[in-house]
């Protein structure tokens, strides 16, 4: 078995250690003897994204964000929509999450059009929402916690076609108002959570890997791994945030 992982714009969208997500995906596949190839996909590169088994997009500084929005629309837009239609699992964090939505409304009132892959929209907020965050999610079918760190000024609101990734137990989440964080639509997860997200939340990593493998090879059962370290790092933050 073999997976091809595409890391979108790693040169520009690499804020807050989000490459940890790609490392986690690759390692947890390798540890199960699943071959992995991680490919960087940069600005202006025309590629067929539906040929990938898993995609990741992170967040960047404002200036880079504008560059990427343009590239997504003019260069990779159709290809990414095809990939999503074909069920390629995609994880989008922070800026990448916002770019997949319908629009981002700047503080000036101007709207930057997004890709519309997720039924969400984002508005600039006055105060940055910064801090540790804990969610409760049912992504994998059973209730579990998600831990990480959020740092965003955008306020994201969900439409009817997406479900939140989870309920906020501690922290701000999508918009700091409705008590939810992230979005799930089909095989796409969008979230504000850094940390990096995947290493300390191995169940989400495995969910993404399972979606990727199933799409390619049909029904699969992932081999169990020893997650003691990940679990203890996870629990430390759950305890700290909820006590």
């Amino acid at each position: 078995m073999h997976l091809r992982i595409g890391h979108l714009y790693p040169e520009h969208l690499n804020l807050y250690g989000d490459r940890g997500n790609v490392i986690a995906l690759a390692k947890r596949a390798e540890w199960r003897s699943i071959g992995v190839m991680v490919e960087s996909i940069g600005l202006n590169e025309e590629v067929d994204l539906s040929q990938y088994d898993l995609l990741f997009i992170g967040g960047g500084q404002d200036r880079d964000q504008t560059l990427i929005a343009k590239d997504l629309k003019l260069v990779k837009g159709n290809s990414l929509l095809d990939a999503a239609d074909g069920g390629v699992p995609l994880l989008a964090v922070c800026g990448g999450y916002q770019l997949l939505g319908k629009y981002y409304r700047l503080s000036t009132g101007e709207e930057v059009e997004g890709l519309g892959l997720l039924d969400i929209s984002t508005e600039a907020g006055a105060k940055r929402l910064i801090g540790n965050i804990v969610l409760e999610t049912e992504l994998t079918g059973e209730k579990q916690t998600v831990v990480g760190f959020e740092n965003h000024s955008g306020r994201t609101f969900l439409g009817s076609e997406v479900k939140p990734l989870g309920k906020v137990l501690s922290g701000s989440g999508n918009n700091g108002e409705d008590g939810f964080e992230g979005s799930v639509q089909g095989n796409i997860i969008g979230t504000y959570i850094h940390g990096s997200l995947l290493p300390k939340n191995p169940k989400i990593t495995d969910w993404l890997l399972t979606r990727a493998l199933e799409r390619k090879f049909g029904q699969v059962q992932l081999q169990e791994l020893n997650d003691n370290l990940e679990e203890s790092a996870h629990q430390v933050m759950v305890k700290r945030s909820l006590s």
Partner: protein
Amino acid sequence: MRFIAVLIGKALIFLVRLTGRGGSNWPGKVVRKLFPGILPYLSLKVEKNILVTGTNGKTTTNKAIYSMLTQAGFNAMYNNTGANLITGITTAYVEKYGQKNEFATLEVDEANMVMAVREIQPQVVLVTNFFRDQLDRYGELGKTVQLVKEGLSLLPEGSTIVLNADDPLTAQLGMQEIDKLRVVFYGLQSNVLRNTAFADVSDARHCLQCGESYVYEKNFYAHLGHYHCSCGFRRPEPTVFVSRLEDRGSSGFLAEITSPQGIFTVDIPLPGVYNLYNLLAAIAVALTVDVPLAGIKEAVRGTGAAFGRMERLLLGTQDGITKETLISLVKNPAGFNAVMETLLEEIVEDQLLIVVNDLDADGRDISWFWDVDFETLAQKASNEIVVSGLRAQDMAVRLKYAGIPEERLVVVPEIEKALDISLEKAKSRLYILPSYTAMLKLQDVLRKRGQVQGYWKTEKKRMRSA
């Protein structure tokens, strides 16, 4: 009124000392409340004020400038406790009020630059470099650069800014319309060092002018090197630069410096390319304010590391066996990579202890662990690694995913216990890489054991001997 404010400030500083705590911000805070004009007033009493800002190396560089000034016989003051917020800086001036100082050299937190320049109106500002650091505090690197730029725009006519030519983010500060200022660039000549082996995920590798990736003819560390861009932006030619270099590993460098004041050789006792940059920056500043070469050379030779900045100590295990211990503060990916690049060969031979907290002064977001190139360490390391601090488990996870087997990761969150376990495990040398508050905690533990002095004690001793 001003005099009363100073007296109150001095009394508060005395009280702070008495309780033995190193807090140096709140005396300044109180005095500023009582008399908002206090800092402009006090800094005017000093003939020349120098500000040192930038992400990495402020403390070491500032200390080096201070010792160059004093070696050359000038009366000088500096904020020696690493208190680099406007309140801590005010405390420093209050404390030194009454001494007739020709120079004040102060490290300034980047976010405090606007206030510091406005109130102090310095003759010289040094900007060392910009790296990602404590992003949750500043939002983004671009904003930090913007804050410093804003600070520079408030400088009085005729001031000098001293800039690192090898850091594009810093260099560009000196390449716009700043006709009323003098600009001095410093850097390394391209043939003095090899390219770095550590992967860098810095966000400074793209041109600020046009967004293209820089082309690096030479890459010394992180995003520092000889770069140019297709739009025409390129590294400025420095006037103060290292023209020849002998790398002596963990005992430092022998460097030939070329400058308008002549060519001379300095003996730098600190290891690491970043320390080479720190000392070079200090030399560039010293030359700018006409410090004679003899004073500069003497001061460089005597450079000691600040606590936790590559400091070497002899520490005993509980059985009384002595091990050489090297402590080096790590606070961001570039700094971490640089320390590991310098020490890698040694670290993999003996015991490593990484201690990371996530308190405010450390940066609460620990996502940056994932930007450190631990993969290179994992390829070479074969010993156990001890991890400690509030985020010990997170560091363990990072190292596991870098390729270090779980059996070789020893997780001991409690810092003092981790220190003892690591000392036991060390064959002859222990390398400790702590985050900022973890470093303070270690210092505290060692002070209680009588193995290092408190900051204030060391300072008093220095003042008496001066």
